[in-house]
């Protein structure tokens, strides 16, 4: 029996190849996701192991919640003291700053604007556990002012060699500086900076640049002597530390940083695994379909086996055995393809700024296990339904001329499908509107259930569509159209299962299109409502920039006034909470509408609070707001409540000096420029741009430009999702190709008959193309309807988050339908050619 199964498998190499396609792609996606996220994780872990000492000594609150250093520092004397601690081999002070951008030879900032541009001081302190950490590969370390060391990748990206002069742009008071590249450094133990850039100066210069010239450090590393553990050393170090300074082991510090960063990029892994899930669901449809067709085609052969004495079980298992072999073959190929895919993802993310090229791909044994488990299990599970159906083949059917597989009841399918849809809708509603834990899972499973339900019910539900398509085809294309339409109706399960693969991809694409379009519409509206002044100055990703920019802009000819806004983040009851701040004398320019109290004058240590937030928090004028900040708990008096104002980015507004006192660096995030009457447009924007010409990350925008900038990240995200959904589309197209090709094989004799009685090759190709288009359009229509529904539902659920504009991009959805037609035509090319090439005589003679 086993031999019979294997023989039949080998006897159908073409079918084997086609059925494996779906498995290969699904497994490739899983493998790709896993390899990529392992690579990402390894790169982070390796990086952070190399960027901590045995014991890290740092001021409490030394970093803001965003990871940038605060104004809290360690005195140099403390570092000397640490070196004397018993068990300490040495102690080194570190200077760290963010926003030190390297400008490349073309005058552009190196790296994306996402990963940080780090600056600091060079020291040769070894990293924890005796790792070398950063070592100079070429040249030497920086020794005096005007010398700098870059990491190898940054030097390479900037196009610089040792000896070149490197321009920098910083967000500190010193906007621009230049230094000679004296050395190139690299992590000796591996680990990539993931797109971050690193510029290191000698300690005195670094202190001069980033710490106002004080002899202090942002943190310090203490290196353990041989035989002293990190824990022991940390305990001893703690004994000498003054208040407000803490010591953590390097392992803890590395874990902390790595997990912070991994969390920050975990969305990427989640994202990829979601797409792996999508491709597997889509893939399962194809496998079920492929096996159903294969089993149907072999039903006579299976009946013969039964007639010769094979048991039901044996026949069923022979099909499962085929599935097993296919699963193994598919998984193996998919595994290889997945590695290539991971390489592709790595290339794509590096163009987004997450540069992993320094880290080799990480191939964990788990990836192999997962690939085979997924490939084999999904294949066998998907083949189980068709295999079970073989049990119902009666031996006597071997003797009949036309063997039709007994089909399960359509009605049962319809009810099962409807039950799934109802259950899925309930889960979706719970996830979107009710307050359930893990709402994301509810939504995801709800969507999946609805999709599966629709797929299950669609042989019944889609009937009217298929009938209408047949009628339309018959009208337009005559007999050939009628034949094609009839073929679509011949086996509605097969047609709709094939369409379902496309449906899933398009549902998600439509949902994304609506969410993206609505988000952009929301951005446009809120910009239109909130844009005050004539120009805004901002940095990419809301980053900070030097306050000198606002000062200089105030001097520009034609500028009436300049309003600066800066952001700070603290914690309130354990949750992050942002605070806005501005100069007290420019509060008026914000156009605040006070409902209670006064903002004039806004004194240091007081806040005005957004009305709705105050209501949620139960605050009113005269109360005190408490917030955990790097310097400890801040208590600010509420002096006024204002109507929600989109230009005040956070519900709390205080003065610039208040934030400076709280330990935040002197940096602006947002500057609004008011032009003098009539000055607008008269080259004013150009003059303002001149001010920031040396700061490539800072831009000057008018209202339209600002709106466009705000829309850009949404566009990028949507585009990225479309690109990934494109893969689901490819799987779906292959599914259609597969089904059509198998149908052509199955209908060889019919094709022969049609050719014999006068159907031309062109007509035959047209017939198959029309069949393909009907499948594609069915999938697209179902997908568009479901996607629109999901998209609108999602936007309704997000109404409370301020995304209250629901915008349906009709043009885009129409484009999807058009794409579906094209997809249908393309999918038919190969099967149609195959059919047209069939030798008429041989086709007629085929069993």
């Amino acid at each position, binding site marked *: 029996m086993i031999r019979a199964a294997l023989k039949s498998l080998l006897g159908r190499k073409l079918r084997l190849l086609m059925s494996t396609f779906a498995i290969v792609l699904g497994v490739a996606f899983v493998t790709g996701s896993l390899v990529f996220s392992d690579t990402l994780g390894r790169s982070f872990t390796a990086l952070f192991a190399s960027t901590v000492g045995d014991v890290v000594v740092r001021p409490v609150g030394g970093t803001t919640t965003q990871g940038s250093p605060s104004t809290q520092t360690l005195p140099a004397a403390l570092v000397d003291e640490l070196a004397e601690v018993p068990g300490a081999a040495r102690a080194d002070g570190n200077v760290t700053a963010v926003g030190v951008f390297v400008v490349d030879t073309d005058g552009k900032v190196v790296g994306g604007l996402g990963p940080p541009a780090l600056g600091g001081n060079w020291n040769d302190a070894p990293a924890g556990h005796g790792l070398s950490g950063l070592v100079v590969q070429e040249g030497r370390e920086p020794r005096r002012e005007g010398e700098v060391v870059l990491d190898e990748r940054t030097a390479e990206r900037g196009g610089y060699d040792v000896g070149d002069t490197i321009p920098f742009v910083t967000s500190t008071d010193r906007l621009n500086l230049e230094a000679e590249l004296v050395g190139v450094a690299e992590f000796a133990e591996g680990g990539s900076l993931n797109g971050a850039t690193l510029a290191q100066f000698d300690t005195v210069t670094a202190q001069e640049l980033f710490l106002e010239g004080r002899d202090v450090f942002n943190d310090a590393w203490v290196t353990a002597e041989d035989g002293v553990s990190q824990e022991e050393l940390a305990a001893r170090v703690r004994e000498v530390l003054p208040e407000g300074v803490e010591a953590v082991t390097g392992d803890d510090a590395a874990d902390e940083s790595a997990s912070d960063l991994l969390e920050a990029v975990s969305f990427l892994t989640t994202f990829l695994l979601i797409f792996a899930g999508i491709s597997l669901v889509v893939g399962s449809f194809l496998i079920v379909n492929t096996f159903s067709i294969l089993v149907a085609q072999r039903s006579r052969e299976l009946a013969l086996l039964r007639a010769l004495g094979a048991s039901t079980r044996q026949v069923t298992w022979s099909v499962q055995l085929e599935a097993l072999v296919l699963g193994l073959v598919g998984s193996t190929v998919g595994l290889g393809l997945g590695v290539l895919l991971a390489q592709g993802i790595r290339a794509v993310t590096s163009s987004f700024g997450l540069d992993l090229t320094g880290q080799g791909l990480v191939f964990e044994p788990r990836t192999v296990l997962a690939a085979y488990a997924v490939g084999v299990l999904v294949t066998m599970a998907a083949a189980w339904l068709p295999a079970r159906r073989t049990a119902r083949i009666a031996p006597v059917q071997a003797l009949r001329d036309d063997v039709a597989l007994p089909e399960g009841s359509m009605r049962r399918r319809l009810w099962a499908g409807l039950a799934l849809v109802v259950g899925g809708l309930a889960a979706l509603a719970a996830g979107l509107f009710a307050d359930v834990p893990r709402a994301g899972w509810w939504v995801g499973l709800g969507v999946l259930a609805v999709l599966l339900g629709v797929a299950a019910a669609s042989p019944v539900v889609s009937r009217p569509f298929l009938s209408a398509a047949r009628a339309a085809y018959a009208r337009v294309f005559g007999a050939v159209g009628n034949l094609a339409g*009839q073929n679509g109706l011949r086996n509605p399960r097969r047609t709709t299962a094939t369409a379902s693969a496309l449906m899933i991809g398009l549902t998600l694409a439509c949902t994304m299109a609506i969410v993206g379009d609505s988000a952009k519409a929301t951005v446009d509206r809120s910009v239109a409502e909130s844009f005050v002044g004539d120009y805004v100055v901002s940095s990419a990703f809301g980053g900070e920039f030097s306050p000198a920019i606002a000062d200089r802009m105030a001097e520009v000819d034609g500028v009436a006034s300049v309003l600066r806004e800066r952001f700070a983040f603290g914690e309130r009851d354990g949750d992050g909470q942002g605070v806005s701040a501005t100069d007290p004398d420019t509060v008026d320019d914000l156009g605040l509408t006070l409902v209670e109290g006064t903002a004039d004058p806004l004194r240091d240590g007081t806040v005005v609070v957004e009305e709705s937030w105050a209501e949620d928090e139960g605050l009113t004028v005269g109360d005190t707001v408490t917030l955990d900040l790097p310097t400890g708990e801040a208590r600010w008096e509420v002096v006024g409540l204002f109507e929600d104002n989109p230009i005040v980015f956070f519900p709390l507004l205080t003065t610039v000096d208040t934030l400076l006192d709280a330990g935040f660096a002197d940096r602006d995030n947002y500057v609004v420029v008011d032009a003098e009457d009539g000055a607008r447009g008269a080259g004013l924007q150009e003059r303002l741009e001149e001010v920031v010409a040396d700061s490539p990350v800072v831009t000057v925008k008018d209202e339209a430009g600002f709106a466009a900038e705000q829309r850009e990240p949404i566009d990028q995200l949507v585009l990225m999702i479309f690109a990934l959904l494109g893969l689901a589309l490819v799987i779906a197209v292959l599914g259609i190709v597969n089904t059509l090709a198998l149908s052509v094989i199955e209908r060889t004799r019919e094709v022969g*008959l049609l050719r014999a009685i006068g159907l031309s090759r062109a007509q035959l190709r047209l017939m198959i193309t029309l069949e393909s288009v009907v499948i594609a359009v069915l999938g697209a229509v179902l997908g568009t309807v479901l996607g629109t529904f999901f998209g609108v539902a999602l936007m309704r659920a997000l109404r409370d988050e301020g995304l209250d504009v629901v915008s349906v991009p009709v043009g885009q959805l129409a484009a999807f339908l058009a794409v579906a037609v094209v997809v249908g035509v393309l999918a038919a090319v190969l099967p149609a050619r195959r059919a047209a090439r069939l030798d008429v005589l041989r086709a007629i003679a085929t069993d």
Partner: protein
Amino acid sequence: MVRGIVSPMTEPAARVRNLTKTYGSGQALVRALDDVSVDLLAGEFTAVMGPSGSGKSTLMHCCAGLDTADSGQVLVGEQDLTTMGDKALTRLRRDEIGFVFQSFNLVPTLTAGENIVLPLSIAGRRPDRRWYDVVVDTVGLRDRLHHKPNELSGGQQQRVAVARALVSRPRIVFADEPTGNLDSRAGAEVLELLRRSVSAPPEEGGGQTVVMVTHDPVAAAYTDRVVFLADGRVVDELRHPDREQVLEVMARMSAPA
């Protein structure tokens, strides 16, 4: 030695001249057709008989534009099939030739009525209503026209196939073992139908030319003329045969030379 039969009596519907076709090469060379010349006469019901491998099916396939020969000529009307490309052959099959096969004659997704007019609708032509009615009445399937093939018996399916072959008024109808899969009664009905399509008055659906490949002497007895093939050559011919004569020739052919 009889190399072929060329009858000057009536106008031939198709003429085969020195047709040769071989398969394989060297030791395995098979001469399916070996310099065959034969006229298939208009308005006659001709049977082509011979043992398995005699070349009878190959001859029919070549005459019907389904297969190509190595050398020689096949003329249907004035058209030389051996010089025609796929497009022209397809059009010839559609417009000039009708087919009835042994099995799987109908498109399963179409009703009996749709199957009957299929060659016409593929050509984008409307059936001649009166002729269609004559054909449908002749095959006796008026009450079955809206049924799908799987709702019809084997005999009924084959009658639909005959109707389809007749409806476009082709120059020749080729039938390849049309009764091979039928019981004797259903087979008799189909043969009767083919016979009538040849000999009935034109207004009742007659006047057709039919060529049938068969190995059944009973079937051959319905025809006007039997052409016998052996080893790719025409070896004998009978006019107005009955079952016994046919059996006799067959016995002679299978006897050791």
